[in-house]
């Protein structure tokens, strides 16, 4: 449903969409050219999201159907980073041995979506849907990853936060996600408080060998908030409470209040720290 002018709300669907041309690029270059040259291009891959977007008012000028772009599928390690093709499905990602380069990532990824969605839904689609309920953004934020966009002007890397702010170059195409493989990088993803909130913890060592960590909390209705951890202590609860003290006071939604998100989030974080062996629970 979406609003039309000031007159009211209408229930839209694909049946409202006039037939559109479909471009099926054979290469990323083709796809970038199509994004640059076609009228109102909409990139389309797994198909699990556009339907919902159209119901909320999105229009389709030209559909850029990415299905033949096998080069955007799968994972690899390049230049010290885990590279995830935007068209990698959740099922493929969770089964990928390469993803094992980040301990905990496969397990976390295996929780995204339900089986029917996991078989078709893609990492890129999950991110670009910009739905607070979706979780790839949470994982990517925790892992300090970026999303790579290709456009006629070249490649750009954006943080998940920048994607929420719609800062991607105009007419660009998300090609892959990139996660720098910092030393000892590992991930814990806790969904036990879903649907209210979920929380990711990433730990690594920086160039100086110091333990570093980032917790990311998101709710059904709020995009992820990142909390940098001070890991100089060994008491998990202390670290967690200190981290959550930095959670903005307005981080709350119609389903969950700020005080609870802090308390429960800190409790979960302490457990996550203990699970990853970063501190005593």
């Amino acid at each position, binding site marked *: 449903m979406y609003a039309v002018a000031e007159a009211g709300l209408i229930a839209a669907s694909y049946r409202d969409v006039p037939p*559109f041309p479909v471009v099926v690029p054979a290469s990323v270059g083709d796809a970038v050219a199509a994004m640059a040259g076609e009228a109102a291009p909409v990139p389309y891959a797994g198909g699990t999201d556009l339907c919902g977007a159209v119901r909320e008012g999105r229009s389709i000028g030209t559909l850029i159907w990415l299905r033949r772009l096998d080069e955007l599928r799968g994972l690899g390690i390049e230049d010290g980073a885990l590279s995830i093709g935007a068209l990698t499905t959740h099922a493929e990602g969770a089964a990928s041995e390469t993803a094992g380069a980040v301990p905990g990532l496969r397990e976390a990824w295996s929780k995204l979506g339900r*089986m029917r969605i996991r078989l*078709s839904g893609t990492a890129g689609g999950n991110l670009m849907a910009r739905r607070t309920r979706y979780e790839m953004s949470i994982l990517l934020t925790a892992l300090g990853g970026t999303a790579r966009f290709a456009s006629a002007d070249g490649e750009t890397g954006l943080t998940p936060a920048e994607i929420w702010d719609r800062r991607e170059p105009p007419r660009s195409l998300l090609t892959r996600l990139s996660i720098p493989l910092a030393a000892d990088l590992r991930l814990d993803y806790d969904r036990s408080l879903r649907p209210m909130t979920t929380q990711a913890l990433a730990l690594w060592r920086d160039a100086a060998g110091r333990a570093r960590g980032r917790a990311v909390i998101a709710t059904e209705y709020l995009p992820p908030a990142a909390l940098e951890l001070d890991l100089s202590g060994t008491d998990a609860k202390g670290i967690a409470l200190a981290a959550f003290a930095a959670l903005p006071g307005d981080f709350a939604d119609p389903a969950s209040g700020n005080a609870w998100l802090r308390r429960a989030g800190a409790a979960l974080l302490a457990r996550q720290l203990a699970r990853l062996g970063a501190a005593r629970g």
Partner: protein
Amino acid sequence: MAERLDPRFDLSFTLNGAPVEVATTTATTLADLLRERRDGRGTKLACERAVCGACTVLIDGLPRAGCSVFAFEVAGCEVVTVEGLATDGALSPVQAAFADNAAFQCGFCTAGMILLAEALLARDPDPDEATIRDWISSNICRCTGYGPILEAVGDAARRRREAAR
């Protein structure tokens, strides 16, 4: 080179084993295309945004919500709907197990659930309970409370294995 598909085009695919050629448009969903056919109304539309799974069909064996698949996507593909499961009037083992376990009530989610189960059993002929639960969690049933559906999928797996023996 990029291919280009016009807004109106002729679509060819295989539906339940038989070739289909139909003039359609790029904006037409697979579910709508199927439901326009006399033998296609078993595919039910509910949420129409890929969440509930009532419209699940198999596309080259992959369970997908027909509401959110454009018809053009299935060009050259094998599409299986609930109408294509019975052989010479005999229910498939999954259908028979759903029938015998009363794994339906209103029946609106049933076609989607059955096709989801077909997809699971094609991949994993002997799924454990956790796997069945994981897969069945893809679709929504508002009536049964799920117990009979989970049992029916396990029952169907046994029937399929026995039939294959």
